[in-house]
């Protein structure tokens, strides 16, 4: 693999990589604002300037400058090497780049940072980006000097509502154009553009339009400063109190990798951020997916219920036992859930086929919805493929409705509450539901046991492309909920069977590598872009 030298260190690169991309892949950060690995490189922030040392025998590229001689107080013409933006220059074999080791580069970074902060408002205490802001980080690393400008900073519009989801603050904006390029290149809807010139620059939405669509949250994600904020997250939480878990979005079958940020003091999830994964979602997530973090708390079942009334686990299990007493396995159905993890579904399947001895396996899912060519999949369930691979013969829920109507099935144990069809007919059967969220099936169930959502237990999900991905646990189980596989084990014991495997490690060993392709494909974003 060809290499070039960065500060004396050999960095391998692929043909066509720019210096900054090659360094990024190698884990070295060259400071930048406007560059993003998923977007084009406009080289307008000038923070990534590096010195490219001339080849031996080659004249260095220089600029004439007027340098102030401190002793004489006179300006003299001097030469300094012309620095190049690392985001734009392609790496070449044998190239020698000086970044941290060059005094000129250090001075350039200092000066660029100083210019960016010249008119920047003193908003840190109220700005949501505080704590994950590149301006803050780079000031401490590269500038470290106080403000020299004594004039009033330029004032621009603040809290401009761009659309239903995004609010813009022009004073904080550093005009990196990431948002413009994202909407144009990735979302394929060039609705943002820049207006005015010089230090009056600001971002505007095309006249007659709003910043709407399915990817508006990503403009906030790419914004390196607090100029773009989401109405959903602004002023909700301070990022330094948030811990993060590597999770998988449960919104659709794409299975975008995400960081679920939660506050451990209140055990509450506050937002998603996309997690980089070249194979699945590159660097992005859609708006609907970004908002699915709310499902960790909304519509949750956190306590057992019997006949719609809240109850204790013990009573619920006792009711289940009495409901299922003396029932033939042939008239018991189990329903798997395309929204629950592989472990949950496996535990249910194992309980049904091995312990109960029934072959009546169905599965249920959320109905299909909007899809596009960018990220959004029509299948709004995260684990459809996983369930299909675990139980290839599982029948659709429609068939269960028929079977119950024809009295072939009288009892059902249901995982999850979703139903793609009208399931009210199932009310005539005795249904025990183990679910995390309220849904049509939990409404008609006689006994409901609370399960943890995807955020509260580590689980594996197989996306539409067949990739098996793991979502780590973020929150502690809410209320009385416990992972579905534990609830199933308790139910099995209540129904008189030996306790099946109920620990994550046990289930994973038994699940083996048969389901889904590839082990966990996870790329943690070590560098904040």
């Amino acid at each position, binding site marked *: 693999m060809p290499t070039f030298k960065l500060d004396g260190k050999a960095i391998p690169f692929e043909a066509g990589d720019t210096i900054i991309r090659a360094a990024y892949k190698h884990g070295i950060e060259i400071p930048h604002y406007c560059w993003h690995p998923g977007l084009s490189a406009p080289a307008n922030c000038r923070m990534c300037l590096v010195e490219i040392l001339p080849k031996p025998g080659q004249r260095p590229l220089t600029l004439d400058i007027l340098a102030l001689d401190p002793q004489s107080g006179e300006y003299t013409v001097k030469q300094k090497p012309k620095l190049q933006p690392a985001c734009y220059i392609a790496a070449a074999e044998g190239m020698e780049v000086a970044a941290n080791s060059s005094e000129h580069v250090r001075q350039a970074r200092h000066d660029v940072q100083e210019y960016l*902060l010249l008119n920047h408002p003193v908003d*840190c205490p109220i700005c949501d980006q505080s704590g994950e802001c590149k301006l*803050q980080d780079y000031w401490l690393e590269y500038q470290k000097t106080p*403000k020299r400008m004594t004039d009033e900073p330029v004032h621009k519009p603040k809290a401009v509502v761009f659309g239903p989801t995004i609010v813009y603050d022009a004073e904080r904006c550093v005009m990196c154009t990431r948002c413009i390029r994202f909407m144009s290149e990735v979302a394929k809807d060039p609705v943002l553009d820049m207006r005015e010139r010089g230090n009056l620059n600001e971002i505007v939405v095309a006249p007659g339009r709003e910043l709407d669509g399915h990817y508006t949250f990503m403009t906030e994600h790419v914004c390196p400063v607090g100029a773009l904020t989401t109405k959903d997250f602004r002023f909700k939480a301070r990022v330094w109190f948030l811990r993060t878990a590597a999770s998988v979005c449960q919104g659709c079958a794409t299975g975008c990798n995400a960081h679920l940020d939660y506050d451990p003091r209140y055990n509450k999830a506050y937002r998603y951020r996309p997690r980089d994964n070249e194979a699945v979602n590159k660097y992005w997530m859609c708006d609907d997916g970004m908002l699915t973090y709310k499902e960790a708390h909304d519509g949750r079942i956190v306590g057992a219920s019997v006949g719609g009334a809240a109850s204790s686990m013990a009573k619920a299990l006792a009711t289940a036992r009495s409901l299922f007493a003396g029932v033939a396995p042939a008239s018991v159905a189990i329903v798997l859930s395309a929204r629950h993890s592989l472990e949950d579904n496996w535990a249910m399947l194992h309980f049904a086929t091995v312990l109960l001895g029934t072959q009546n396996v169905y599965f249920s899912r959320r109905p299909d919805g909007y899809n596009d060519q960018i990220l959004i999949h029509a299948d709004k369930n995260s684990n459809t493929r996983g369930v299909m691979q675990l139980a290839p013969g599982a029948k659709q829920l429609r068939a269960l409705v028929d079977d119950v109507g024809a009295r072939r099935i009288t009892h059902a144990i249901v995982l999850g509450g979703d139903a793609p069809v009208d399931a009210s007919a199932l009310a005539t059967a005795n249904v025990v539901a183990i679910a995390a969220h309220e849904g049509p099936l939990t409404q008609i169930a006689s006994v409901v046991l609370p399960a943890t959502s995807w955020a509260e237990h580590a689980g594996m999900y197989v996306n539409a492309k067949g990739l098996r991905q793991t979502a780590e646990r973020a929150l502690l189980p809410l209320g009385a909920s416990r992972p579905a596989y534990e609830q199933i084990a308790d139910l099995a014991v209540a129904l008189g069977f030996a306790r099946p495997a109920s620990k994550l490690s046990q289930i994973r060993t038994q699940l083996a590598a048969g389901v889904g392709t590839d082990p966990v494909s996870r790329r943690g974003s070590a560098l904040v872009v």
Partner: protein
Amino acid sequence: MEALDLELDAGELELPAEPMHLNMGPSHPAMHGTVRIVLELSGETIVKADVQIGYLHRGFEKMCERGTWAQVFPYVDRLNYVSPMLNNVGYALAVEKLCGLSVPDRCQWYRMALGELARISDHLTCDGAMAMELGAFTPFLWFVKAREMVWDILEEETGARLTHSFGRIGGMAEPPTPDFKGLCRAGLPKILDLVEEGERMLLRNRIFLDRLENVGAISRADAIALGWTGPCLRATGVPYDIRKAHPYLKYDEVDFDVPVGTKGDTLDRFLVRLGEIRQSKRIIEQVLERMPDEGPLNCDDPRVVLPDKMAVYTTIEATIQHFKLIMEGARVPSGEVYSYTEGGNGELGYYLVSDGSGTPYRVRIRPPCFQITGGLSKILEGRMLSDIVPTFGSLNMIGGECDH
């Protein structure tokens, strides 16, 4: 009737006896800062003394790992809480050693002056309390009056009498008040007058001297092997004072002597402390001469020192600096360092381990009186019960420091 014992053999009148166990403390007027001594007595003689500490353990070292480097200052204040400034300065010097910073001269003089004031306060408390426990209540109150004068100066400078939290990495929290030198110069002679009055009352008192002289003596070699430092070691005749042996700040530019004892007994420890008060006064007077009245107090490295508040409210750079230092903490380079200064009781050492972030990885406080109290059981063996009080008092065990 005849006397019963005339014809008995020597051993026959021995009554069966068991050693008596007596518990002193932890809640006891003479157990400075809660210490429990479980004594095995034979009559009045101490056969064995088990000194049990830990009643004031507050988990400082663990708590330091949960904050930033600057948030350790309130904790170190509460170590030797009768000379908190010395702890602050010691810790600040330790972090500055890790960062490779040196503070401006004005700050070094200021730290020395405040530190010596704290040392005076420490010795006044120790000697006064010793006297009080032996029944001499009046000199205690005189010494406390002198201590109040010291604390008045410190209150004027730092805002607090005892737990100042005044040290900062790279300097001090506030510059000296305009009247600092005047206050010190006015207060020191009065303090010394009170000390001399107390001395006159105590050091010619037969009872006082008898209770202290030759009591709780320890030899040089034993003291060194036990790790004793400070006035307790110097009382045995070892002239080891860190300010002379390994000068820090500007201690090599001031003249002072190191009072040294001869016998290592309680009286020597008492007298060494009184001598040190006078030497501290000498140091402070020289420092006040040398300390510039103007100039920067803190070093100007923005990576550790907080910016001026008005700048924080009006400029973004200062806001960012303030934000980074408070929220993330000053990022101290990774590595480990052991830094030591002369605290009130001896070598106050800080062993800091940094992982390069704003949170300390490990802050180990080497408390001088921990080692000293470790030797207590040794010097009490064979002594009488009533010797415990002056001996233990002379060691100046400060619960906060010993138990951290």
